C-alpha cells in the first residue's frame, strides 16, 4: 500500500519528513567492496565493516529500533519503524548486517528478558556493534526443531551448556547467539529452554565456531560447538521449560508476523550483483546460441521461460491480492505460500538458466567466459539453501495442507 493511501499520525508524518531529509544528506556512497546478495552471505571483514558503519549511522540518527522503549536504546515512538523502512528502501540504502539481531533476537529479548539484560544487549544490537546469530538447528534437529539435544545443566546460579548447532549464519562475526536448548530430556516440548549466550568473548572458553562450506564453495554459515560453556542464569529467557513459547516469538517475527516491525533497508546494489529473475534469464537466452540461432528463438526454450514468467508474476500478484480482503477466502492462505513459491521459482529459474546457457552453463566464477560471470550456477546451487532453510518446502507444504486446507496432521 502506498503511504498516501494510509492515514498517518502526526508523529509519522513528521518522522517521515525527518527520515527523508536525513537520508538525503547521509545515504552512504558506493560500496568499496562487492556486496553479497543478502546479509547472511557476508563473507569478508571489509564487507561487514562497511555495512556495520551504515547500520551504526542509521541507529544514531534514530532510524532503527524506533518503536522500542527509550530505556532499552529504542526511539520510544509509535509505529514509526515502518515509516523509516519505507524511506530507507526508497533511498536505496545498503541492507543492515545485523539481520538476525534486528529481526529475531531483539523482539524476543524485549518480550522475555529481564530489564537489566535488555539494557545491556539491545543498544549494541541496534547499532550493529554486536552481531547476533541464531542457534536453533542441530545435526539431528532440522525440520523437527523441537528435537534439539543441546543441553544446559544447572549449577547454582549458572548453567553448563554442551551441544552442537549447525547452519549458523554469521556466527563467525557474532558476539551473541539466541539459543534453543533443553534442560530436561524427558519431555520433548516442555523440556526446552531459551538462552542468549556470548560467542566471540567465549571462543576457546567453551565455544568453538567452525565454518561450514556450502556446495557453492562459499562460506557464510558455521557449526558452533559448546563444551562446558558457563552462562549466568540471568541470560535464560524462559520460565523453565517454556523455551518453545519463547522460540515462537522468534519464529513469528522471522516470518514477518510479529507485532514489532523489523528494521529493514536495502535496494543498494554493487555493480556485479546479479538477480535470479526472468528478465535476466531472457537476456541470457538472447545472448546464447542454440542450433545456430539465439536460444531465445527456440520455441521449447521460450515456452519454459514463459512458464516461469507466469509463476513469477503470479507470486507478485499474490502479494498484491493478499491486501485485498474481498478476494481472500482464508486470511493466511497467500502469506503462508510466499516462502515456498519464492524459493522454488528462484530454484527453477536458476536451473533453466544453467540449461539455457548450454555448454557455457558448465563455466563457474573463475572463468572469464562464464555467462554473467558464473553467477547463474552459483544462484542455482544457492537456491537449495532457500528451499531447505527456515522450514523445507516439504514442511511448508505440510503447514499449508494442515493450517489452510485443514488436512489431518502428518507425522
Amino acid at each position: 500500500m502506498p503511504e498516501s493511501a494510509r492515514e498517518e499520525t502526526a508523529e509519522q508524518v513528521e518522522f517521515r519528513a525527518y527520515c527523508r531529509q536525513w537520508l538525503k544528506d547521509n545515504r552512504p556512497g558506493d560500496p568499496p567492496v562487492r556486496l553479497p546478495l543478502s546479509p547472511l552471505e557476508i563473507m569478508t571483514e571489509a564487507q561487514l565493516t562497511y555495512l556495520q558503519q551504515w547500520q551504526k549511522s542509521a541507529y544514531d540518527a534514530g532510524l532503527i529500533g524506533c518503536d522500542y522503549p527509550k530505556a532499552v536504546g529504542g526511539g520510544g515512538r509509535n509505529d514509526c519503524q515502518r515509516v523509516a523502512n519505507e524511506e530507507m528502501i526508497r533511498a536505496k540504502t545498503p541492507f543492515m548486517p545485523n539481520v538476525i539481531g534486528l529481526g529475531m533476537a531483539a523482539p524476543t529479548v524485549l518480550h522475555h528478558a529481564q530489564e537489566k539484560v535488555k539494557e545491556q544487549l539491545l543498544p549494541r544490537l541496534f547499532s550493529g556493534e554486536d552481531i547476533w546469530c541464531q542457534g536453533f538447528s542441530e545435526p539431528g534437529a532440522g525440520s523437527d526443531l523441537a528435537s534439539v539435544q543441546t543441553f544446559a545443566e544447572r549449577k547454582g546460579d549458572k548453567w553448563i551448556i554442551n551441544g552442537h548447532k549447525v547452519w549458523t549464519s554469521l556466527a563467525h562475526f557474532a558476539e551473541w547467539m539466541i539459543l534453543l536448548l533443553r534442560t530436561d530430556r524427558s519431555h520433548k516440548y516442555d523440556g526446552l529452554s531459551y538462552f542468549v549466550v556470548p560467542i566471540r568473548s567465549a571462543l576457546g572458553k567453551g565455544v568453538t565456531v567452525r565454518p561450514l562450506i556450502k556446495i557453492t564453495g562459499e562460506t557464510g554459515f558455521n557449526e558452533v560447538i559448546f563444551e562446558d560453556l558457563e552462562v549466568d542464569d540471568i541470560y535464560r529467557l524462559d520460565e523453565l521449560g517454556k523455551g518453545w513459547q519463547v522460540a515462537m516469538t522468534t519464529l513469528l517475527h522471522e516470518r514477518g508476523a510479529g507485532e514489532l516491525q523489523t528494521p529493514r533497508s536495502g535496494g543498494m546494489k554493487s555493480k556485479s550483483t546479479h538477480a535470479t529473475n526472468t528478465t535476466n534469464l531472457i537476456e541470457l537466452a538472447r545472448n546464447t546460441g542454440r542450433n545456430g540461432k539465439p536460444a531465445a528463438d527456440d520455441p521449447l526454450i521460450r515456452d519454459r521461460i514463459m512458464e516461469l514468467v507466469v509463476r513469477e508474476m503470479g507470486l507478485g500478484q499474490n502479494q498484491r491480492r493478499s491486501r485485498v480482503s474481498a478476494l481472500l477466502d482464508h486470511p493466511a492462505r497467500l502469506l503462508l505460500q510466499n516462502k515456498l513459491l519464492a524459493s522454488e521459482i528462484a530454484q527453477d529459474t536458476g536451473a533453466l538458466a544453467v540449461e539455457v546457457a548450454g555448454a557455457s552453463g558448465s563455466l563457474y566464477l573463475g572463468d572469464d567466459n562464464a555467462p554473467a560471470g558464473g553467477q547463474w550456477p552459483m544462484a542455482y546451487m544457492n537456491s537449495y539453501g532457500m528451499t531447505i532453510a527456515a522450514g523445507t518446502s516439504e514442511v511448508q507444504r505440510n503447514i499449508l495442507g494442515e493450517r489452510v486446507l485443514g488436512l489431518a496432521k502428518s507425522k
Partner: protein
Amino acid sequence: MAQPDNFGFGEEATLLKESARKFFADNFATDKLHGMVASDPNPERMSECAWDRDLWQQMVDLGWTALAVPEVADGLGMPVAAVAGLVEELGRAAFPCPLLSTLNATYVLAACGSAGETALGEITQGRTASLAITNKQGSWEAADTDVTCEQGKLNGSACFVQEARKVDRLLVSARNAAGLSLYWVATDAPGLTIHPDAIVDLTRDQAHIQFDSVEALEVSTEGVAALEQAMPAIWTILAADIVGAAEWQLQTTVEYANTRQQFEHPLGFFQAVKHPLVDVMVLIDQCKSLVYNAACAIDTEPERAAEYAHMAKASASETAAFASGRSVQYHGGIGFTWECFVHLYFKRQKHSQMLWGDAVWHRARLADILMGAVA
C-alpha cells in the same frame, strides 16, 4: 497508466460476488446439477442442452447479463474485475447457461464503437448471444474464419460455437471484399442451421453453424481489430470461471480426503495426497491473482491487457488440468464412477482448458510480446 492496488475490486464488486455466491448456493447445489445434466451416461449420446431457464431468467432479471454493457447502451458498465468476480462464482457452481458467451459477445460489440450499440441494446434488454468466429480447424486467431459475406448474405460455417442452442443471437466474423467484418444475426434466421456437437462437457452445449445465404446486420468493418481488443477480456473471464471451478474441486477433494480412511488414517494424513493438494491450491491462487491483475489491466492499463491476460489463461489452463486430474485420482474408485460429482467439473475444466487457447498457445503469444516474435 498505473493500476490501483486493489485491482479496482471495490465495494460494488464485493457485493456482486457475495450475492452471486449466495444465489448459486441457495438455488443450485451440485446434486441438482448432476440430476439435470447427467441423466444419460451413454457415451455415444448426442449433445444435450439441459439447463434451468427459470433460474437463468432470475439472473437476467438481476442484471447480470448487462453488467459489461457500456453505459451508452444502457448497460451497467461494470469493470472487468467485478465481472470476473461474478464469473468465478458461476464457475464454482458450474451452472449451465449462456452468461460467458453473452459476456464474450458484449466485449466484442463494445470494441466495435457506435456501430455495436444497437446489438448491445438488445443484450441490455435480456437477449443472449455467442461468438461464431472459429473455423473448422479450431484456430483461435482472430482473423481465421470460414464464413464469407457477399451482398449482405452470410455463407459457410462457424465451428466450436459455445452455448449455441441457448442463445438468441450470434456475432459472426466473416470475410467480405473489404476484409473481415462482424455481423449480428438471430439464431432462428432463415438459412441458419445449428448442428450440435456431441461433447464431453455436460455443463455446456456447443455446435457448428451452417450459414446458407443468411441475411445479417453488419456491426463492424474492423472485425480483426475489435476481436483483438476484446480477446483479453474473453480469456480473463474464462480463467475466472476456471478458478471458481478449481476451488470447488479442491474443497470437495479436501473434504473427501478428510473423511475417507485407509491404513487407519484419513487420506489427507498421507503426504502423497496432502502435498499435491497444496500444489492445487498454489496453482489456483496464482491463477486467481493473475486473473484480477489482467482484469484490472483491461480497465486501467490497456497497453498491458493482452500480456497479462495471456498469463491468466496460460495459468488457468494448467490449473484446470492439474486440479481435475487430482480431484478424480484422490476420490479413488468412487471418483471413477458416473455417480460421483467430480466428473462434472473434470469435464467442464477440460473443455475450458482448451477453449480460447490452451497454456502452450498463450505462452507462445506471451513470448512474442516479451521476447519479440521469431522471424
